[in-house]
């Protein structure tokens, strides 16, 4: 199949300006900048049904429409802080198809009438940032960015900025704080960034993959994009497949393929043919899904996965087989969340610390049934109280594991809620 986002897999050297140009590169940007009004671009993206690929799945066009037209300047900020365990899609785009991404950045900036865009990359992406800087310079030279884009009055400066190693900076308001030079901690919302974002100005924060979808949408139209995927979720998605599969990696597929297709056809099935046990569909932040036949035949779109009691999020599908004990697994996720809790709000700071103690005790076989009950209670006690989603996410694997796999915690029956 031909790729839409991972086009470099079909076309060698697509990261070279000349090759990208020859392959129809910057056509979309030219069309937008020289022939469309910003509102028309926003409307087109709205019509295409594109939803954010960072995890929350918020309709991209609608987010742009919220940008306050009475407060200037506007900013576009790219969330390239890809930090969710099991997520590695943005990295491939940035490394191998960077020009399509940058073209997307420019389209988004034009649509929201921003003249400055910041690409906030996780610190470990410093070589990528260095490459991006070179490409931004080359694009400026070629007239695709910088002053007078395509000879018009439109100006766009794109900057890269490196984070300093905090998962929380993938949360958009913490990212903005960090970008402003402050501690990376989430802000109180509302106001949301399109109303008050970077430096208190209207700001659109979009994910790398989201923006990479824009050039093909502009080139082929909203209807074309809507023809891909399912009625619930249109378009294509890069699924990051990892865990106990034979062929882990990024798979660009339309929404609506089933877990079975993804894991067994594309991923080559489970290592050593061990029976599959559970799936985490959105990285470490996932609730665990019991991998029965019904699950495996569930189409991968936001609505269907939600009905399984989980979320598709950034589609970082981690596959767990019968060799994986979930008391071990949740201790892993809690190690991560305790380490990454920013400390701003009490439930997450103290709750993750407490949970980590409990998961460790249980993992080491020193926990009692009471400890498991307590762990479940502590996790539920955090829910609905945290300042941002990170705290909420940290409870997902814990609560769902205990509920769906009580055997892994030495419990015969389901633990009742609360």
């Amino acid at each position, binding site marked *: 199949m031909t790729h839409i986002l991972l086009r470099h897999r079909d076309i060698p050297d697509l990261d070279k300006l000349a090759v990208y140009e020859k392959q129809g590169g910057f056509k979309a940007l030219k069309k937008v900048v020289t022939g469309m009004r910003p509102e028309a671009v926003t409307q087109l993206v709205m019509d295409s049904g594109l939803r954010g690929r960072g995890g929350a799945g918020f309709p991209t066009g609608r987010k742009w429409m919220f940008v306050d037209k009475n407060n200037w300047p506007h900013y576009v900020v790219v969330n390239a802080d890809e930090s969710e365990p099991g997520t590695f899609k943005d990295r491939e785009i940035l490394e191998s198809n960077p020009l399509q991404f940058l073209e997307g950045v420019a389209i988004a900036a034009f649509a929201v009438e921003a003249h400055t865009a910041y690409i906030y990359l996780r610190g470990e992406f410093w070589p990528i940032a260095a490459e991006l800087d070179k490409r931004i310079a080359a694009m400026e030279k070629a007239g695709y960015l910088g002053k007078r884009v395509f000879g018009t009055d439109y100006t766009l400066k794109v900057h890269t900025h490196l984070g300093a190693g905090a998962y929380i900076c993938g949360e958009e308001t913490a990212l903005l704080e960090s970008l402003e030079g402050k501690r990376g901690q989430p802000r*109180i919302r509302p106001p949301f960034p399109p109303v008050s974002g970077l430096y208190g100005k209207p700001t659109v924060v979009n994910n790398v993959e989201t923006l990479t979808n824009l050039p093909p949408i502009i080139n082929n139209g909203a209807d074309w994009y809507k023809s891909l995927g399912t009625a619930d979720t249109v378009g294509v998605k890069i699924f990051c497949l990892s865990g106990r599969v034979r062929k882990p990696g990024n798979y660009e597929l339309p929404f609506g393929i089933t877990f079975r297709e993804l894991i067994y056809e594309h991923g080559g099935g489970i290592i050593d043919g061990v029976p599959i046990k559970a799936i985490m569909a959105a990285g470490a932040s996932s609730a665990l899904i019991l991998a029965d036949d019904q699950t495996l035949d569930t189409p991968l779109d936001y609505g269907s996965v939600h009905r399984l009691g989980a979320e598709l999020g950034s589609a970082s599908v981690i596959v767990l087989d019968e060799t994986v004990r979930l008391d071990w697994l949740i201790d892993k996720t809690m190690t991560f969340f305790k380490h*990454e809790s920013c400390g701003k709000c*009490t*439930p997450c700071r103290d709750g993750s610390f407490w949970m980590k103690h409990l998961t460790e005790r249980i993992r080491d076989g020193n926990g009692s049934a009471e400890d498991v009950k307590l762990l479940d209670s502590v996790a539920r006690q955090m829910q609905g*109280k945290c300042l941002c989603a990170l705290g909420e996410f940290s409870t997902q694997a814990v609560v769902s594991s205990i509920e769906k796999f009580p055997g892994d915690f030495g419990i015969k029956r389901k633990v009742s809620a609360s």
Partner: protein
Amino acid sequence: MTDRVTLTIDGKQVTVPAGMLVVDAAKKVAVHIPIFCYHPKLGSAAMCRQCLVEVGRPIIDHATGHPELEDGFPRIQFSAKLETACTTLVSEGMVVLTQSERARKGQKEVLEFLLTSHPLDCPICDKGGECPLQNLTMAHGPGKSRFLFDEKHHAEKQVPLGELIFLDRERCIQCGRCVRFQENVAGEPVIGFYQRGRSMDIVSFSEPGFDSVFSGNTTDICPVGALTTADFRFGARPWELMAAASICSQCAVGCNTTLNTRREARSDGQIVVKRVMPRQNEQVNELWICDKGRFAGYHYTERDDRLLKPQVRRDDKFRSVSWDAAFLQAAEKLQDAEKPVFLVSGRLSNEDLFNLLQLADGLGAETLLYTNMGGGDLTGMVGLTSGSNLADLGLGDVILVVASDLQEEAPLWWLRIKQAAERGAMLIVVNPRETKLEKHADYVVRYAYGDEIKTIQDMNKATHKIHKVFAKAANAVIFYGSEGLGLEGSSGLAGACTSLLVDTGHYARPNNGLVGVWQRANDQGAWELGFRPVKDLQVIFDKSEVVYIVGADPVGDGAVRLKKRKPFMIVQELLSTDTVGHADLVLPARAFTEREGTYTSGERRVQRFYQAVPPRGESRPDYEIVAEIAARLDTALEREPGLVMDQLAEHIPAFGGISYLKVSEVVEQWPVINRSELFYGGAVYENTQGLGMQLRPAPVTSFPVSKGKGGLRPKEGLLLAVPVNKLYDQGLTVLSAPLLRERIGELKVCMNPDEADRLGFENGARLRIGLNGNNAKALLVVDPTVPSGILLVPRSMGLPIFEAGMPVLSKVRKKVTG
């Protein structure tokens, strides 16, 4: 209708301004929603999550735009999650439940999280007894812990953030109030968070540590025992303390304070002051005091060299005498002298000064005010009047500060002016060198030392931009100081400022006028009562027969030199000053902590202080001593301070209507501070004993023409030493506080790098300075913000400097031994 919103909180209906937070609206109807990180002066942080409540909103029918009704009442939709009352804005028809089962469960659960990492060392914690966490745990918390204590987070328990403030890292609940106070209120972000998650910690980034003159306030608003003052920690338990309302005696702002006292074994069973706490007065100091007021507030009253008995000099030795004998001798000496002189200072209360004035009148004595700053006659005429509050100044108003480093001289005025500027008031800072206030100024005007008066006079020309700003402003206030200026210069400057205010119509109405940045708590009161300084005190001492010196140390300050022939000196004092050392009759006075009285602040607010501790030795209040002397001269003066005030109000027009009853009145203030719950405003004391009362506008028809000249001007190639005021100096009232020694340090003089190069001195050089016949050793600080040709010499740091003068500098030679 859109600016007021009506909602229901726990069944109580309340109408509040739109844009208010639920937590504040609840406070209005005495519903105390538990909080840790929110503070009414600091705003929302949404960190602690303690204030979870159930919030319901009426369901709006989109067709009609009105709420849907059910049995005639709006249908309320409650949100699925609990909401934080500190971030949720009120809305019309909102229903808030703070005590529902869901809300209480949420609050209890957050508290349980907080307690998992808390050491629960209440029995040894200074906050125990006045701790929001302790109180809220009693009210909302679980009685039993589900957390294994062995797994508790451990951290360092005694971390000095500086020498004044200590951090207990275990007790900290990461609410960030201290960090936000420093950043948003004090404007000195010298502390911050370090690390993240459970390892998140407060650290200081400044050198010296926690370098802010407002640092002590963070310990009041800290909702746990994480931040404590070096002054009070391990000193006493809060429940042992008695509280007495007082007024800070350290500067002219008149911060309202509470003195906490207890009787203790370690002080030989005496009742002593244990700490100074701010007392709410939203017109003066809000909820704050500066570190000088807190850490040096009363210590000088407890010095070992307090005068305890009346003494007379006989055969060049002091001998204790009875009060009766002392009164009699004083009366005789004063009566026998042809024209006795009374030299008094603004350290005395209004009552003391009034009785002195009455006695002087009877004797035909000359009354002199001991000060090196003039212009009080003008602040009495065009100063702030009743109804003035710096908190009212904002957009459309203008504040001008001239010849004053306000943060060093009157920190709370600095803070309040900064806030006014943040509210939109235009701030103009006119000073010969950079000061911290400039960061918040709209205009900074720099002049050369000596050009103070001319600079302000120029501004008062109709075409001048600043004149236009004043003419257009709704309200205007000028603060003038004595940087670089002596008595004459500052008088002249006050005159120039008065002209600007009068010509643009900014006087004799609230929130307009002239404020002197005085050095003493009651300088303004002394001026109001008619005491005036003289230019040459030496002449007075040279020619007078009898001088009655009250609350002043002219000898120690170097203001007079005693010659062989000296006047008979009656000295009424607290401490064994140099002047006392040369006295012929010594009358021991009580400290302000040991008696009642009132001070008139620079904003012309008469405020009352109360007795906190028993008197030391045989000391008596000044007004009483004066009344006793008067009695020996057949003059009857009041001996009860309240009655003295009644007399004062009758005799001095500006004080008309003022009485102890009036100055003790309180009205409800916002935010509502309540020591019984502590978590909303902090450990700050509520004000139950008086907000004070401002003096009347003086009826003035004409003003004296400003004719004073400025200070000396620097001359090419010559160095000019100019006096500046420091917050922490070696005056006895500050030096007596052991904690501030490091901040006071030694005499440091500052000059420009070019000047230092020219003179061949390097930064840190030890210099010997001769100035007007006095000598001192000093450390040289090379500072690019000092104008060239200028040597900054701080007042009260060991080298007497009343006016600018020409210094003689030489390097101190190191003694070579060996």
